[in-house]
């Protein structure tokens, strides 16, 4: 039975043979402590360093490649984006922050906030 070892928090979770499981979902369900915010590959809060078992992980898709950039080649993956099909060990910085603060903090400028602001400014409220 394969195991995901969450080295930073000291948890290990088994899952059935011939199955593959989403790493962040396993962490949330078993309270293994991987930090996360958006869960859609947008903020990067849930990045984990692959200590071993990278060959048992699903190939990175568009959102993960774009969010991680060069971190991907250095051995980092996004727990929300990756499926494990065999033994793997991961670690992370418990204090780590999003890679893009704008992805989770609307007090900072974002495309949608700027769009809304333009719309508000376009309304003539003197009439």
């Amino acid at each position, binding site marked *: 039975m394969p195991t995901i070892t969450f080295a930073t928090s000291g948890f290990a979770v088994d899952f059935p043979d011939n199955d593959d499981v989403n790493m962040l*979902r396993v962490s949330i369900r078993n309270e293994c402590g991987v930090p996360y915010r958006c869960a*859609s590959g947008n903020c990067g809060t849930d990045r984990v360093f692959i200590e071993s078992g990278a060959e048992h992980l699903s190939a990175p898709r568009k959102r993960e490649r774009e969010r991680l950039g060069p971190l991907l080649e250095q051995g980092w993956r996004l727990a929300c984006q990756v499926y494990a099909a065999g033994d793997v060990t991961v670690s992370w910085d418990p204090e780590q922050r999003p890679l893009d603060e704008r992805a989770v903090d609307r007090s900072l400028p974002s495309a949608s906030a700027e769009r809304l602001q333009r719309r508000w400014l376009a309304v003539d409220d003197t009439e």
Partner: protein
Amino acid sequence: MTELLSRDDFRAALEQAIVGNEAKNASFSLAWANGDLSREHFARWAENHYHYVGPFADYLAYIYSNTPDNCTDAKDFLLQNMYEEELSDVRHTDLLIRFAEACGTTAERVTDPRNMNAVTRGLQGWCYAVSMREHFAVATAALVVGLESQVPSIYRRQLPPLIEKYGFTEDEVEFFDLHITSDEVHGERGYQIVLDHATTPELQLRCLDIVRAGAQMRFSYTKALYDTYVAPDLVPA
């Protein structure tokens, strides 16, 4: 059911309530995964799917308003889910329209409610009714456990043929890629809300019944897509 189920037993019962009605096994899903559909069929799917998932933040907002102030974990989950549907990145319905346009239909056709079939209209109405009228744990069981948590298992089968057989680009199918992973987490957190807040045998039973009903609704919706748009194409001229 007169006794409160343990957390593990209740979770197993919720998962079992979907078994037999998984939308991934409906005729339209199987034809999609097998590469038997055309771009026109995908376009009709998008014109229906928009009206089921388009108001998802609205459904969640009704549940949010029915959730007591002291259930902060549930309220935060609902708000985060709404935010991700609409504002955190590209609006999810914009990704659906992007795929629809790649299939040859238009944003105008996708957003026009006259282009959904009657079963889709029924699913949308059921989502509104449940979210407005039910206890927040029961409504979360219906929409998140019964419906949303099924998404990864459906799209993980449907995404590969879109790229490998039909030649869609990664940009064009981002709607599916996004939901495979985000709904893993939404589904898991939805289970947690239900496990934490369905605290009486009566509430647990209502959750189980409505998860079963939700799975039936999604199965029927998916089957109706095949019956309405695919089956007629199989009749010899």
